[in-house]
């Protein structure tokens, strides 16, 4: 299953769309040590941006104080059942990807 790391539940509710996103990610802070006492290097999602119809509806900058499997919920005006959301994440390592989700 070539699914990305993001899972989204986007629901059209009246004039609004409620978006809930969770990423499968350890959000390593860089402060933890492994069993041999070596620091585990920081590896976390730095930004997660969501757009709808080419318009940005949410931009986030995240730090290491965001929990493992980061969660984000917000609501924007507009959006209709069947439409698509674009979600772009970038890691502090430079890794990045865009994933999509349908509004239900």
């Amino acid at each position: 299953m070539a699914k990305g790391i993001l899972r989204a539940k986007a629901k059209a509710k009246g004039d609004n769309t409620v978006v809930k996103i969770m990423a499968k990610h350890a959000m390593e802070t860089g402060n933890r040590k492994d069993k041999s006492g070596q620091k585990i290097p920081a590896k976390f999602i730095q930004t997660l941006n969501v757009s709808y119809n080419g318009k940005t509806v949410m931009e986030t900058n995240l730090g290491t104080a965001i929990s493992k499997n980061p969660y984000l919920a917000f609501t924007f005006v507009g959006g209709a059942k069947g439409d698509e959301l674009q979600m772009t994440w970038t890691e502090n390592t430079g890794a990045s990807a865009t994933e999509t989700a349908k509004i239900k």
Partner: protein
Amino acid sequence: MMNRRSVLKAVFTGGLVAGMGVLMPRVAMAAWSKAAFEAESQEAAMDVLYSANPSASAEVTLKAPDIAENGAVVPVSVKSSLAGVTSIALFVANNPQPLAAQFTIPEGTLANVSCRIRMGKTSEVTAVVTTASGEYSASKEVKVTIGGCGG
């Protein structure tokens, strides 16, 4: 909402990325600010981001538990009834790096976000809401206890 002072400060503290972000035309918020996210005190982080100290406001609502079930996953929500909210930021004062997240709120998106944060120990959690007229905040102490067994 950064002015020249905070730009200078950001650059001065080695926050090259933050500085550049601010110098760019302000498309919503600045890029990920190393200076702010790596600042080791809430004051320093706020200094990078804001020109003045945010003032407490009843129109900012921070929802967080009194006692966190588990400091690793603390559900937090922020909303505001203020007009023209452009961004929301979350700080955990006693974390090694207090700035937890920034959310840019474009027009058409409600000033109401939820996320889950990590807390190393009991701490004040502060939400700062940015509007055209400045920064407003709400704070709440969240207790992090050493668990017993956990249900």
